[in-house]
Each structure stands twice: as structure tokens, then as C-alpha cells.
């Protein structure tokens, strides 16, 4: 048993180390096109319902893509500054990531709240069920089990 446990411990350790190594690795330098794609993925096309500028083929989206490409090419502004520039002109409707202030933050906090409530309900349900101690088996019960074990020809099916 101990070797089993230590093998499992070793496996988890191996996975963690490999994951840590891979998580901190990067996939090469970020090209200009990567930057453009990243910025346009965080801007909403103003004439669509929730599509990003990166996805949408609408004319307003193409115009914004051209502008973003121009600014990325000019290399003066950072990603956040470019997003602010577009937001200043089109309004906050063009931000694809809802802000974390005011009423908008509900879209982040509600899922978190739901998850916490769901998990606590689950945990409390298991605790409640675990507390129910089953009564001691009766003599008849024991005989029943003995017979059933003797009769069964098949080891437990898994399906």
C-alpha cells in the first residue's frame, strides 16, 4: 500500500512540475499581427450583438481593425491605450470585457456567488447524508447477504 501511495505522490509531483514548467514557458515573441488580434479581440463591434472586432465582418468592425492596425504599426501606444482611444470615440459599448465597477460587475460576481452557493449546498448535503448512521444489521439481513454472496456467479459489473 505504501508503495502505491508513494507512486501516486510521485505522479502528482511529476505532473505539477511539468505543468509549472509549461505554464511559464512562452510560445515565441509576439508579432504585430498577434498584438492586433489581441486588441481587436477585446473590442466589441459596435453594430453587432457581442461579436468582437476580431470576429465580425461588419464594416464598422473592419474600420476599427484598420485603425487598430495603423496604431499598432505606429508603435506609439500600448494595447490598453489603443483600447481607450477607441473607447473614447465609440463609448463604453465597445468594451468587450465588462468593467469590474458598478452594475457591470454583477456579470462577474453573480457566477462567483452561484458557484460558492452551489458548492456549499453540495458540501452540506454530503455532510448531512454522512451523519445518518445506518442501523446495525439484523440477523435476517446477515443471512440474506450470505445467501446472495454464495449465489452470485459474477464479480461486480462496472456499468
Amino acid at each position, binding site marked *: 500500500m505504501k508503495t502505491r501511495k508513494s507512486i501516486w505522490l510521485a505522479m502528482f509531483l511529476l505532473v505539477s512540475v511539468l505543468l509549472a514548467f509549461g505554464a511559464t514557458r512562452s510560445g515565441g515573441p509576439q508579432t504585430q499581427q498577434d498584438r492586433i488580434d489581441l486588441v481587436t479581440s477585446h473590442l466589441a463591434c*459596435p453594430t453587432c450583438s457581442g461579436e468582437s472586432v476580431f470576429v465580425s465582418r461588419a*464594416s464598422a468592425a*473592419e*474600420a*476599427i481593425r484598420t485603425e487598430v492596425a495603423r496604431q499598432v504599426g505606429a508603435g506609439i501606444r500600448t494595447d490598453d491605450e489603443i483600447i481607450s482611444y477607441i473607447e*473614447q470615440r465609440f463609448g463604453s459599448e465597445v468594451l468587450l470585457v465588462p468593467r469590474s465597477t458598478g452594475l457591470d460587475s454583477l456579470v462577474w460576481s453573480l457566477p462567483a456567488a452561484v458557484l460558492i452557493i452551489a458548492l456549499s449546498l453540495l458540501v452540506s*448535503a454530503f455532510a448531512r447524508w454522512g451523519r445518518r448512521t445506518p442501523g446495525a444489521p439484523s440477523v435476517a439481513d446477515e443471512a440474506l447477504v450470505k445467501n446472495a454472496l454464495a449465489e452470485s456467479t459474477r464479480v461486480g459489473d462496472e456499468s
Partner: protein
Amino acid sequence: MGSKYLVKIVSSVVALVLVSLLWVLIVSKPSDGQVARSPLLGQPAPAIVTATIDDQPFDLQRRKGSWVVFNFFNSTCVPCINEHDLLVDFAKREATSDNGAELYTVVNDDSDDAVRNFFTKNGGDWAKLKDENGAIAVAFGVARVPETWVIDPNGLVRIRVTGELSEGLLEAQLDKLREEFTS
């Protein structure tokens, strides 16, 4: 899972959410043709250098000293078609007054031919400006047409109207601006 109270609580929550959703949807009123905010208001207008659909050059800088009205337009957009006659009347009024405003149509995602045909059929002889790659629309932050912008003789953006114009709205706003400007 069998708590009767849990089921009752869930049903009440569901009912509450439904009722509020319905209320919210029914109560909301559409808004249209309104004077809107923009971070450009009171700021110098973006530099606009382009050409008309008849290939005449246009430079916003050289229009300083006049009131300039930009109308972002698309020949298939229904509110644009609806407000067209109001713009024709507006252009006529401004043409006959001194220091009249200059009206320009900015073509938004439309072909020059379609725009030309529309104006031939429906009148309106003011200049229509091409918008390469939608750069002018992006500079002003115009996503939906129609939109109407007013720029004063000093080149500052003064008014933004989103949606279809209502009768007299543009004239009233412009007159108010003129008063403030001369005083």
C-alpha cells in the same frame, strides 16, 4: 434531494426573476433622434482630408470660419432615407442665409454609385465625402447611421445627434449655438 421548502424557494426565485424580466422589457422605451454625448464635444474636430465622390478634394481645416455639418449616411438605411427631406430643407435654408452652415454627407459603407443614384432621385446637391476604410467614422466614433455632427467656425465639435432627425431639431440646435458663439 427532497426538501419541500427548497422547491418552494426555487419556484419563488424563478417567478421573481421572470416577473422582473418581463417588467424590464415592457417598460423600456425606445429613444431616437437625440442629442448625444461624445468625448469629442468641445474638442477640435479630427483632421479630415478626403475627396468627394466626384473626386474633388476636401480638407476640414480649410472650412474653418464656417459652420460645418456632417451627416453620416448610407443609402439603404431606413432612418437615413426618412430624414433626407429634412436635410434638403435644411440645406436650402442655410444656402439663403448669411454665414449659413455647410452640409456634407459622409458616405458610410456604401458604394459611390448607390449614393449618387440616391441623391439624383431624391435631390440634394451638397458635397458627398468618401470615407476610405471608414477612417472618418472611426475618428468620430460613428458606428450606426444616421448621425449628424455640427462643427463651429473655430473647428470645435459642438453637437452630436444620433438617430433620425426630427423636424426642426437641427435648425433649433444650430440657432442656439450661433447665439452662444456670437455672444
